[in-house]
């Protein structure tokens, strides 16, 4: 297609506008993180910001974690359904309802329609995890909640601003229903600042380039991504691909929960059908539909183009189906506090189904679960109560090109940092006795081996101590690829007074001063036949202490001494043995 010079200039202008839109969502994120009072936001980056066009299609988004990859469109759709007819300039809407496109009650989304010259041109959205929205436990994520009512206040798309002014009655409603009102209202203001920045920047862009050029850019962003996405799907072989997996308990019982997906690829269309997954559960492991969309889209994005900025164009070839009332499509009043464990399972299902088709984009199964653990008690020095909350890093699966990555945060999180031992010990009556790679637990053997999990062992120095935890993949192991071996399990080991217990989902456990609580994460799955792993690489693993000589012999059929010296003859004989 021949283009003229003017077309070339327009193409460049579109790229420049795209750059400005990306800078705008970045700026929203910076403003939000800077104004927030909550470490979950400014440390864990449990937030996302986006801009959608007037039709509700996501144009640009910035994420700190993956859990909000697919929620914005659904949330905006439910707001438009409720308020589309009466919406006007100066409105801002607030929603945290998992059953209206959200995730769990702690994630509060603010949506601001953006008007330019009296015309609705776009929507800005910011979502962030508030530390506290009320409910049965502080933090609003009760490990054994049975109904969403125990998980705090729900805001069903309420108009929190009119004429750009915060509605005082809603502010008071929040103030009286949450345990940390200063923090909650601080986060509300931080999110408000973020959507207002977007409003300001978009108005500048419309003023500089004109509405037509900006509209043209919006369509171009969506269409160019859609084109790449369809090409990527088309390159995959048509067919139906299934995967199934087990969720190891829901917080109330340890009963294993079957989940499954069928991926159907036909030309440039792809469908993820979760029909057949178990019914929703009494415990908070459930996801609602918005969270399911996010988990499937996260993996789809990994398939088609992991680094390109996300927008709805990428997801146009995708259909996601699942009957209502499953553990992935829970209906009210199901609790969804730990939805991120359920959605991690949904992501891994899609991943497991697609990995054999596009090994160059995927890795084998990972430790998957954030293994979120709460350690608390009373500080003997100050008499104050404390709670320390940590997600744990773990082992990721091997790929067709290299060994899996060790001690890395799970798919559901992202640019999330572990907590410095020195900082934590200065802050809480906890002493970390060991922070090490979990070589004892092992990782999936293979031509490329899985990455190792981690062991983080705490000594409780406080009084009135307790812990609670929600650990997945404690029974089912991370899967291997192409004959690679399985990885290993996650668990928490509690040692007290000479006893030793392994647990995974625990609503509340009192502990004594001196008790040891170790969060142990598993290794990822392996890729390819372990017997084809080069002998030198096995020997290097032995020298590095990742493997014992015994494991090298058993799993890899390599005879090597502890310092890495290879017995070539014995190895050849062993490997020839078939």
């Amino acid at each position, binding site marked *: 297609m021949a283009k003229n010079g003017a077309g070339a*200039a327009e193409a460049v202008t579109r790229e420049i506008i795209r750059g400005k839109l990306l800078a705008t969502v970045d700026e929203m994120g910076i403003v939000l993180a800077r104004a927030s*009072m909550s470490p979950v936001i400014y440390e864990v980056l449990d937030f996302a910001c986006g801009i959608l066009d007037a039709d509700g299609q996501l144009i640009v988004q910035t994420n700190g974690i993956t859990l909000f990859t697919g929620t914005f469109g659904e949330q905006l759709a439910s707001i438009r359904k409720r308020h589309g007819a009466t919406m006007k300039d100066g409105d801002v809407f607030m929603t945290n309802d998992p059953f209206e496109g959200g995730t769990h009650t702690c994630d509060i989304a603010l949506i601001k329609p953006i008007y330019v010259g009296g015309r609705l041109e776009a929507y800005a959205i910011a979502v962030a995890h508030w530390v506290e929205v009320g409910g049965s436990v502080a933090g609003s994520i009760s490990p054994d909640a049975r109904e969403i009512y125990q998980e705090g206040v729900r805001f069903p798309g309420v108009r929190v601003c009119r004429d750009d002014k915060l509605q005082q009655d809603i502010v008071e409603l929040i103030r009286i229903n949450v345990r940390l009102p200063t923090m909650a209202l601080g986060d509300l*203001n931080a999110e408000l600042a973020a959507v207002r920045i977007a409003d300001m920047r978009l108005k500048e862009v419309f003023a500089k380039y004109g509405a037509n050029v900006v509209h043209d850019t919006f369509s171009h962003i969506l269409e160019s991504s859609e084109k790449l996405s369809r090409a990527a799907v088309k390159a995959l072989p048509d067919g139906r691909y299934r995967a199934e997996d087990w969720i190891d308990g829901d917080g109330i019982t340890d009963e294993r929960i079957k989940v499954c997906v069928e991926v159907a690829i036909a030309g440039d269309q792809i469908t993820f059908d979760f029909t057949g997954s178990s019914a929703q559960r009494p415990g908070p492991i459930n996801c609602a539909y918005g969270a399911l969309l996010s988990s499937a889209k*996260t993996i789809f994005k990994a398939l088609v183009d*992991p680094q390109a900025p996300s927008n709805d164009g990428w997801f146009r070839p995708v259909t996601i189906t699942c009957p209502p009332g499953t553990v992935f499509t829970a209906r009210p009043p199901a609790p969804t506090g730990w939805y991120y464990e359920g959605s991690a399972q949904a992501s891994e299902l899609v991943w497991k189904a697609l990995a054999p088709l596009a090994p160059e984009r995927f890795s084998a199964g990972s430790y998957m679960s954030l293994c979120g653990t709460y350690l608390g008690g009373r500080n003997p020095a100050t008499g104050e109560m404390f709670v320390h909350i940590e997600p744990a890093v773990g082992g990721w699966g091997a790929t067709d090109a290299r060994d899996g*990555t060790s001690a*890395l945060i799970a798919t559901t999180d*992202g*640019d*999330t940092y572990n907590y410095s031992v020195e900082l934590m010990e200065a802050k809480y009556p906890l002493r970390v006795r060991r922070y090490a790679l979990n070589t004892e637990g092992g990782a999936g053997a293979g031509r490329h081996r899985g990455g190792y999990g981690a062991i983080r062992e705490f000594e409780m120095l406080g009084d009135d101590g307790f812990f609670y935890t929600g650990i997945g993949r404690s029974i089912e192991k991370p899967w291997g690829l192409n004959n690679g071996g399985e990885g290993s399990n996650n668990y928490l080991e509690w040692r007290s007074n000479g006893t030793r217990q392994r647990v995974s989902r625990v609503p509340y456990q009192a502990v004594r001063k001196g008790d040891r609580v170790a969060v142990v994460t598993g290794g990822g799955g392996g890729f390819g036949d372990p017997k084809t792993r080069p002998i030198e690489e096995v020997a290097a693993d032995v020298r590095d202490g990742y493997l014992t000589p015994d494991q090298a012999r058993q799993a890899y059929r390599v005879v090597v001494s502890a310092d890495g010296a290879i017995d070539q003859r014995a190895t050849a004989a062993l490997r020839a043995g078939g």
Partner: protein
Amino acid sequence: MARLACDIGGTFTDLAFFDDASGALVVEKSLTTPRDLTRGIEDAIGLAGIKTAGISYFVHGGTTVINAITERKGVKTALITTKGFRDVLEIARGNRPDLYNLRFEKPTPFVPRYLRFEVRERIGPNGATIEPIVLADLDAIIARCKAEKVEAVAIQFLHSYAAPAHEQEAAAYVRERLPGVPVTASHEITREWREYERANTAVLNAYVQPIVLRYFDTLERSLRGRGIDGSLAVMQSNGGTTSFAWAKEHPITLVESGPSAGVNAAALIARLTSEPNVIYLDIGGTTAKCSLIEDGHIKVTTEYKLEWSRTNPGYPVKVPVVDIVEIGTGGGSIAWFDRSGALKVGPVSAGAEPGPACYGRGGTEPTVTDAKFLTGALDPDYFAGGRIKLDRVAAQKAMQKIADGLGCSVEEAAVAVIRVADADMINALKLVSIQRGHDPRDFVLVVGGGGGPMHGAALGRELGVRATIVPRYPGYFSAWGMLVTEPRRDFVQTALTRAGDMTIGRIRSLFDELVKEAEAYFRADEGLKPTDHRYVFGIDLRYLGQEHWVTVPMPTLEGASVEGILADFHAAHERAFSFKLDDTPVEFVNFRLTAMATIATPALTPLDEAGRSLKSAHKGTRKVDLGDDGRIEAAVYARDELPAGATLDGPAIIEEASSTTIVHPGQRVTVDKLGFLRIR
């Protein structure tokens, strides 16, 4: 008396020479010689034709340290840690910034697991010994290091920032038993907490130390051989200098040696022009770097990460580094199309060899410099003072690829490449200014580097700054900056204390300790008297429960009180984060001391007016395509002929040997008495 500065960049080695007697400044460039950097310096000295005997002060900045790390040319290094923590270096922070990449690879640690060792010892967060160190554990480790021919050792124990005794004992024990193997204990580099960051910092210091030792020894021999018998200084990353001797022990503090000189020079421009707020932009061959100077002060942080990107967590280095945002768009950056057909510029660069296509040295890829040349911004016969004759045919041939992709003419393609490059730079400039809560209307833009003046006026206009300032010798800005930089060292001590338990006496004694260290340092290293020192005090504070802190600067300790510090903290927190929490307890975290020494630095002399006039400066006109401003006839001036006080209107092109300044229609340039161009 004369002074000499050498800045070794990726492409060029820049030299600036100042003769105190005559006030003359000589600048020169030679090609950087990566295999033996000393040779590039010798080449530049030769080209400049300066007399080296009698040079009383030599200052040097460069890329030796950062290159050794990024090219993985360091030595075989071992790490000794507290028992239970040898994997901290590999676990790192566990973050995964490349969110959708299910094959994410962490940065590989610089010490493999088999060279990471553990020792029984434990110190608590308050510095108290929980378990004494078992020095005998080191014997087996030392034996292994010998057997493995380890060339450098790093030691990092938990909470050594609070009490370094165990690290000191272990370091002494190892040094005695491994002669010739440099040992770095983490507290010798930083007294800040965070075990992974401190371990990584110590490891990188050890990893490059033998290389830096050799390098400085060679350089010193070469300089002494040329009769340079004055003091030898090196530019650190914190915007100050130090001696060769100290740098050899703490090489990691040189990690951003070159860029920090430019930022420091921009701060000097801020003083000379009475413009205390500066956004500084340096456009080199492969990258553009931005930094912000507020109220005359450069921003220095200890949050630096080597090889960091949006998708890479990088390697944290906890030494004071000037706060710089760097993007992969420079003069040599190559234009290309991504998978979706969008035009992009950088980060791949044509570098020094072969360089942009128009250099005629075999480059075939279209670069920003080629684009500038094709729009008419550069004179083919006066590039680098006429040393490189620009090849139009080669530039056109390279740019044809972009023209084909866009379906337009080569000239239009060149304009498109510049628009994309400018947009990238604007986003970076906004990141250091608007996105950090600064209003560009309160700032001037100072541009440096060979490419800065070419883009500066357009960027300044879009950013909305008060003015764009092109200093003298923009192409030698870093080297000149080194000449005017003073010795500086930053000290920090973490001492977590709740405000209720803090007394002004404790604050004084903490700072007294740091001041004592500073005095000892300057005495030993620079032979300076305490009266020559200036100190800036700062305290990092935070609300209880927070992770991040705010640094409260303290111009003086005279009359300071805990209450006053807390009031300043609440106000500073509100400025930085838009809120304060009056009822929440406050914690003191880190105590910071910046120690600077006052030494004589050369003054910038006013322009010598002799023979200068606007008329003689006017060289003619040239057609130039300025994108949105159209293709227009611009007046061309020789900068060296422009007199102080001259005023001229855009469109205009102002040429000098090291750079070309573009002035757009509607803009006016004035030449101030020091010869700086001020574009509005």
